[in-house]
């Protein structure tokens, strides 16, 4: 077990190298002059060159790369051209917001998608099943940013039940940061008012994010449940008189979930990189908004940093899924 985890962590090294090489290549080899952009429209040639020199951008790409990797070893992700703030500190500030959003969305998706998938498989080929299949494809087809806008329009602008965006109103004093998740930090601080505020701010973006993974998890769960229900051991369980409810909830569900787990892992990583649009709509101060601002000004250090962090989280999420898979499937655990 420990060996398994260690081996996977060692395997991260080439991933980090590969990611940085690819992102560096994109940052340096594509056209565009980020330095001129950062220096501003009125900058003289001399000012631009001075800025380039300050950030080492006048040196060969290889030197820049090795400087960057050297910094990585100390947890230094470089400095933003535009704000001159260290990227690592920025990411540390924005990452919890994105993680909170993604985890909330995945919790909604799993909590609803798994039972729904199981139920539609059990009642398959009847009208609730057909209806849910159509609705699921519809949910996957719904652009998240359009859904976000519709939610805002309905619940924030017309009904005024929920706030339009952000994580907390300005007038609420944020709790001392422990986890960086406002919903958890407010609970730790015992501030129920701030907690309910944080939840209300989280609700719409999390729902907008959760719809497509919910539908996918439901479809996956339905397919794998149907597959498991056709397994011989289910026939045996039926032939030996186990009650239907027990067969489905115990013998089928567990095996079907293990097949769905892979999808959950993939989706988790995918959502981390896909918060950009929802964060834009709800003005959610996370990595997506941060990366978008950097991309528009072609400020490449933050972009590389964000890609690296999300890439590593993606790999980590899949490692967790593999471990969970071992918990559910004893055969994997022992081999």
């Amino acid at each position, binding site marked *: 077990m420990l060996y398994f985890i260690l081996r996977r962590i060692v395997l991260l090294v*080439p*991933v980090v190298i*590969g*990611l940085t090489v*690819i*992102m560096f290549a*994109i*940052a340096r080899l*594509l*056209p*565009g002059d980020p330095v001129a952009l950062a220096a501003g429209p009125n900058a003289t040639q001399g000012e631009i060159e001075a800025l380039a020199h300050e950030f080492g951008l006048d040196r060969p790409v290889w030197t820049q790369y090795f400087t960057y990797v050297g910094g990585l070893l100390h947890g230094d992700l470089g400095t933003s051209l535009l704000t001159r703030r260290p990227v690592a500190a920025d990411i540390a500030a924005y990452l919890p917001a994105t993680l909170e959003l993604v985890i909330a969305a995945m919790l909604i998706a799993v909590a609803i998608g798994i039972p729904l998938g199981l139920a539609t498989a059990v009642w398959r080929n009847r009208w609730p099943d057909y209806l849910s*299949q*159509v609705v699921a*494809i*519809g949910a*996957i*087809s*719904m*652009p998240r*940013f*359009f859904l976000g*806008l*519709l939610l*805002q*329009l309905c619940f924030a*602008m*017309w009904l005024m039940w929920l706030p339009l965006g952000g994580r907390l109103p300005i007038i609420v004093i944020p709790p001392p940061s422990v986890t960086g998740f406002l919903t958890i930090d407010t609970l730790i601080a015992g501030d129920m008012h701030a907690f309910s505020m944080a939840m209300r701010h989280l609700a719409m973006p999390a729902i907008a994010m959760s719809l497509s993974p919910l539908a996918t998890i439901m479809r996956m769960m339905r*397919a794998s449940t*149907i597959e498991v229900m056709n397994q011989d051991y289910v026939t045996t369980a039926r032939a030996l008189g186990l009650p239907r409810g027990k067969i489905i909830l115990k013998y089928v569900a567990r095996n079907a979930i293990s097949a769905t787990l892979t999808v959950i892992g993939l989706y988790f*990583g*995918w959502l*981390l*990189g*896909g918060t*950009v*649009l929802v964060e*834009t*709509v709800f003005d959610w101060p996370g990595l*997506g908004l941060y*990366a*978008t601002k950097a*991309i*528009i000004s*072609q400020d*490449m250090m933050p*972009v590389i940093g*964000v*890609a690296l962090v*999300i*890439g590593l989280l*993606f*790999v980590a999420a899949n490692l967790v899924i593999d471990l969970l898979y071992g918990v559910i499937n004893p055969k994997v655990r022992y081999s």
Partner: protein
Amino acid sequence: MTETVQTPQTEPARQGNDRMRRAFFRFRQSTLSMVGAGMVAVVLFFTVFGTMLAPYPDHVAGGVETAARFQPPSAGHPFGTNELGQDVLSLVMAGTTVSVLAGFGVVLIGSVIGTLVGSVAGFVGGWADEVLMRLTDLTLTIPSLILAMAIAAALGPGFANMVIAISLSWWPGYARLVRGEVLAAREEVYVTAARAIGANPARILFRHILPNVVSPIIVKMSLDMGFAILTVAGLGFIGIGVRPPTPEWGTLLSLSRSYMPDYWWTAMAPGMAMFLAVFGFNLLGDGLRDILDPKARR
């Protein structure tokens, strides 16, 4: 099971015919696939004729009518007018061309690159396989939307740049798919036979292996079309990609955001157009997968 007298020569042909017949039968049986096909047909129709049929062609070309700003939906403007007094319906109809062509371009380029990478990796094997697949896995690790945004921003605005940027994050899925299929096909008896008689490897790849990979690729392309359209619209929404006055659904939607909630109708038409187009492609792709890809069949 079925035992009928047939000469060996006609058997494969008959089987093939039978398979097609059954596939078509199943497709027709599936109401959803038919609905999807119908929706896709409408979308493709507007892709070709949208600009031509737009009730206000000069608005599509960038014409402004400030006197008629923010008119609510009416008979003359079923989806109202926007901040420049342009007919929203006309813009959305014309926007079909950009969105669908861009989506198709992305899927096409992505699948061509992916097929090349995957077939070389699977067919040559050894170190080529190792290098190409590591590269594929790495690209999959990078968040695709951020990658596409970064490339698009670096390349600068424009239709072609946007398509290229998204395609560069789109190919790994195809590479993995094709490699798997090529590896499986390599072991088939007819390929071994072709090798044994000393056929040229390129010929084996193109004549014997790739044709068998076509149907999963088509299934994936049809399933991907919707997501490609969504990604294109997403870039437009953020403000990277094509610029106004070129009508594009994502851009139209992002402009309308500033005029919520009073002029909400400016958002409805582009949003619904996106949703319905993607819905159609997904329904069709889902139906095609059930029929063409027996492994994924439920």
